[in-house]
């Protein structure tokens, strides 16, 4: 809100500059800046509606800078009965005060009044309306003037009936359709104003107006907010009521208005205001433990200083020590508990005077850690650290980490064939409508987009994914894209996955053909027969590695080949934590021998490895490495070794034989090797070369 610096100086008696005032207010009350015209722009905090008024900001400023605040010199009796006021819901309208002023002369305002309004961005209407506005700016209490002659009967404050209408007092004479969510001021003829938001045209003050009724009411913030939202209409008054202003304000605002009207429009105010105030609010008095003040702030502010600060802000203080009694001023509706008082003390004492101090701590949680297996809905540091280490490992392998938005579009949902997704009620844009059930759709887009800048793109992401059953889990997704398909992409990604898992200490990983209904729906995104399910030793599926389905790639206009993988991060990391065991170093030398064979196309590497394992009766094989796989293409198939037989490919494995008890003899190794070769021939029909 904008504040006139001149006016603030008048009211506060401060002798600091506008810049100094802004700095002090920013530190201790609300963020304040000095505008180009030398006036203040203050960002009033939600708990300080009182400061939306020059008078109370001036009071704050006076107490913060040592100025001599000149309080109100006007007052007014209540108990008048010029109009009958009926409040149907005291929660929606806690107080309705009104004052009749007779014999005013409506006309232009004096220049000084016009100037004051215009400085603050309001245009002058006439002397009566201008007084209403200037009192609002001064005291924070919105006022409304009705032409008394145009009011029919008494005033009723009630919710509007369905179908009621009101023509607003604005230049366009906008007609608002009302309903029971909107609070109105009604006379015998119907609504004459939208409570706390806008006056009506039918009862407006005009050139011929002689007698007026000034309304100073208090409306519930939530009711005014609801009305503002319903009618899409915000006004200076509605902003103030939405903050929630003190009901105590009404009568002094009427008194101030009467005082000003007498000067600028003549007229005689009735001696007493009408005041409907069903449940008068009582001043709040709190017991303040000054030891708690020092303990919570961590500052050595003594009892005298505490009392002085609070009195300076208008609080009434009595007693001291653990039983200081503090009564809040009527305009401070935000003061409800001790901590509210401590905040007052803290900010005025000066947060800059609070020292930086190390806390007195326990070296560890008294209550210990939760059991790792307990199914808590959060992740602990162990998991977070592992994930970070993983990120560095993947970066070491040439993968770049991306962060994506957690939402996907209808189009991605369609292309990836996703169903039962959770959805935002009001998405930011169509691009971000559904909660991602997997990290891959967006990661594939990242690959596509980055292939414009690079021939090969390697990316990964970790993050939450959300499924239709309401669950949220951590995932790790990887993708490799290449402009030119070398045919090696699957193995490149599998190799990276292998290395990553090994570094995590997971060694019991198997890759299997993807069964139907595998690791979520992921496998469906891969080309048929070109995806593997990744399983741990006990058969738990932890992820999928595969080549992106060409149909998906085509729809997304990916220029190149893409391999993708996704893992359940929590399962992976938990599994890794239980792994890794020391193996004694070998005492005896190992013997390496290669076996080279031709096998049919349908013989898989795993068949060969398992056959070798089974045939190793003497348990001498320590390791088997596949060193070469050659699948002939085109003319190569015509070479004698392939054309003569059914054989589809040649495979070479390097065998490592070793015993933990003795140095192996040549005879022993040969015997073991012979048995293995025989098994390969018998069981797999291999031709040993």
């Amino acid at each position, binding site marked *: 809100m904008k504040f006139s610096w001149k006016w603030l100086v008048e009211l506060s008696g401060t002798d600091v500059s506008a810049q100094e005032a802004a700095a002090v207010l920013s*530190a201790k009350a609300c963020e304040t800046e000095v505008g180009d015209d030398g006036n203040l722009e203050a960002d009033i905090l939600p708990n300080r509606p009182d400061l939306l008024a020059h008078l109370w900001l001036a009071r704050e400023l006076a107490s913060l800078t040592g100025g001599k605040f000149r309080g109100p010199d006007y007052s007014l009796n209540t108990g008048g009965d010029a109009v009958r006021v009926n409040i149907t819901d005291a929660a929606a309208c806690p107080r309705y005060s009104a004052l009749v002023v007779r014999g005013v002369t409506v006309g232009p305002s004096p220049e000084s009044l016009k100037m004051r309004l215009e400085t603050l961005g309001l245009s002058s209407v006439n002397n009566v309306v201008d007084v209403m506005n200037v009192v609002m700016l001064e005291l924070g209490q919105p006022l409304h003037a009705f032409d008394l002659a145009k009011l029919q009967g008494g005033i009723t404050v009630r919710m509007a009936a369905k179908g009621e209408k009101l023509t607003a007092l604005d230049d366009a004479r906008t007609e608002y359709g009302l309903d029971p969510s909107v609070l109105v001021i009604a006379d015998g003829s119907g609504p004459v104003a939208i409570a706390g938001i806008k006056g009506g045209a039918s009862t407006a003050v005009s050139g011929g107006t002689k007698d007026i009724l000034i309304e100073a009411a208090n409306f519930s913030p939530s009711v005014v907010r609801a009305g503002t939202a319903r009618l899409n209409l915000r006004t200076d008054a509605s902003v103030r009521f939405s903050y929630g202003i003190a009901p105590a304000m009404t009568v002094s605002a009427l008194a101030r208005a009467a005082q000003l009207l007498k000067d600028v429009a003549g007229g005689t105010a009735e001696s007493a205001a009408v005041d409907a105030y069903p449940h008068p609010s009582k001043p709040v008095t709190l017991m303040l433990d000054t030891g708690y003040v020092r*303990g919570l702030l961590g500052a050595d502010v003594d009892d005298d200083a505490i009392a002085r600060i609070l009195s300076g802000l208008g609080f009434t203080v009595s007693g001291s020590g653990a039983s200081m009694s503090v009564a809040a001023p009527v305009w401070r509706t935000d003061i409800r508990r001790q901590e509210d008082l401590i905040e007052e003390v803290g900010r005025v004492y000066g947060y800059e005077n609070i020292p930086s101090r190390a806390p007195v701590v326990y070296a560890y949680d008294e209550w210990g850690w939760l059991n790792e297996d307990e199914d808590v809905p959060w992740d602990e540091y162990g998991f977070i650290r592992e994930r970070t280490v993983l990120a560095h490992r993947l970066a070491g392998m040439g993968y770049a980490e991306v962060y994506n938005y957690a939402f996907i579009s209808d189009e991605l949902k369609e292309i990836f064939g996703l169903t039962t997704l959770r959805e935002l009620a009001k998405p930011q844009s169509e691009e971000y409508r559904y909660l991602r059930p997997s990290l891959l759709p967006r990661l594939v887009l990242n690959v596509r987009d980055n292939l414009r800048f690079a021939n090969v793109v390697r990316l990964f992401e970790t993050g939450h994914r959300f499924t239709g059953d309401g669950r949220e889990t951590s995932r790790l997704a990887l993708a490799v894209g290449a402009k030119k398909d070398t045919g090696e992409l699957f193995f490149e990604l599998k190799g990276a996955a292998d290395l990553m898992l090994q570094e995590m200490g997971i060694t019991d990983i198997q890759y299997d053909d993807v069964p139907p209904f595998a690791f979520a729906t992921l496998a469906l995104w891969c080309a048929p027969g070109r995806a593997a399910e990744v399983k741990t030793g006990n058969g738990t599926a932890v992820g999928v590695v595969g080549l992106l389905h060409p149909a998906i790639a085509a729809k997304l206009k990916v220029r190149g080949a893409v391999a993708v993988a996704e893992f359940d991060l929590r399962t992976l990391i938990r599994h890794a934590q239980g792994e890794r065991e020391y193996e004694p170093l070998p005492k005896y030398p190992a013997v390496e021998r290669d076996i080279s064979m031709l096998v049919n196309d349908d013989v898989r590497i795993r068949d060969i490895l398992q056959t070798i394992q089974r045939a190793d009766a003497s348990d001498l094989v320590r390791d088997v490495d596949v060193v070469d796989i050659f699948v002939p293409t085109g003319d190569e198939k015509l070479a004698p070794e392939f054309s003569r037989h059914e054989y589809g490919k040649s495979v070479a494995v390097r065998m490592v034989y070793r015993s933990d008890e003795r140095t192996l003899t040549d005879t022993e190794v040969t015997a073991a090797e012979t048995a293995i070769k025989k098994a390969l021939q018998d069981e797999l029909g291999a031709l040993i070369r």
Partner: protein
Amino acid sequence: MDDRIRRIRDAAKKEWEQLRDAAELELAKVRHLGRKSELNELLRGLKERAEEERREWGPKLQNLRQELEDGFRTAAEKAGGVAAKVADRIDVTAPGLRRDRGHVHPLTQAQESINAIFSSMGFRVLEGPEVETAWNNFDALNIPPDHPARALMDTFWLKGEDALMRTHTSPMQVRFMQAHQPPFRIIVPGRVYRNEATDATHEFQFHQVEGLMVSRRGADGVSMANLKGILEHFYRRYFNDPGIVVRFNASYFPFTEPSVEVFMKAARGKLAGRWIEIGGAGMVHQDVFKAVGYVPGEFQGFAFGMSLERPTMLKYGIDDVRLFHGGDIRFLRQF
């Protein structure tokens, strides 16, 4: 010919007598004895000469070569090293073999150092769910349905569910306190969502780090002075600047009382000398303690929240927050 021999000898001798550097000597040796040297040309030209000449000049030239080799060798030994043969030298300015480098996202890196610093101060690091209940995100934090702050948060609600994308990391305060009794100290880094228009400084998805430290109420209880101390220590470590100071300005949050805005001022580097707003903080509101089932008045402590993006942008001079979620390799490559 004798003249040429003398000239060659003199020139070479001059060099091995004057040069003190092994590498330079080696180069000089190549000039005088190498393939393109005058001496070598004479030797090569010898076979086209007449027999007599060959017999006369051959031994002389060979002697000269021997003399030069000895001279340079002795000089090189004196120079204190055996110079590398030029043929074995590596052009150290040629590029190394290219390895594809990967990249850890700048926000992961920031997160990592923040976690490490707080962890070293004994804070537990936790991450919570991103889809939350309205109760955890609002009600328990003293933001009832009617509260204006609720409307200000621009919440993404989920369609057909009583759930939302958390608007801050504070709901983890609620989850954690429901399961634990003080004393404790935790930080909660994580992703949060606000349904607002994006520009260079606004995102609808960003990250926060929440801090919460609670003790029993008392003179030694966790205080605002501790909040200042912890944050100051953190920023000093994070920006590697022991001169950093922290300032609080009065503010308002429904879940803290008193509430403050946190500013820091660096002593060196590109951020030096100006106050930078860095987060919100305050002393945990007793209504929050009440909501999680604590007896009001028994405990006291602080909570703070800061954006992860902001200090990262300050640290690297990044001018557009949207780059973090853009997935552009040209951006990521720089980290």
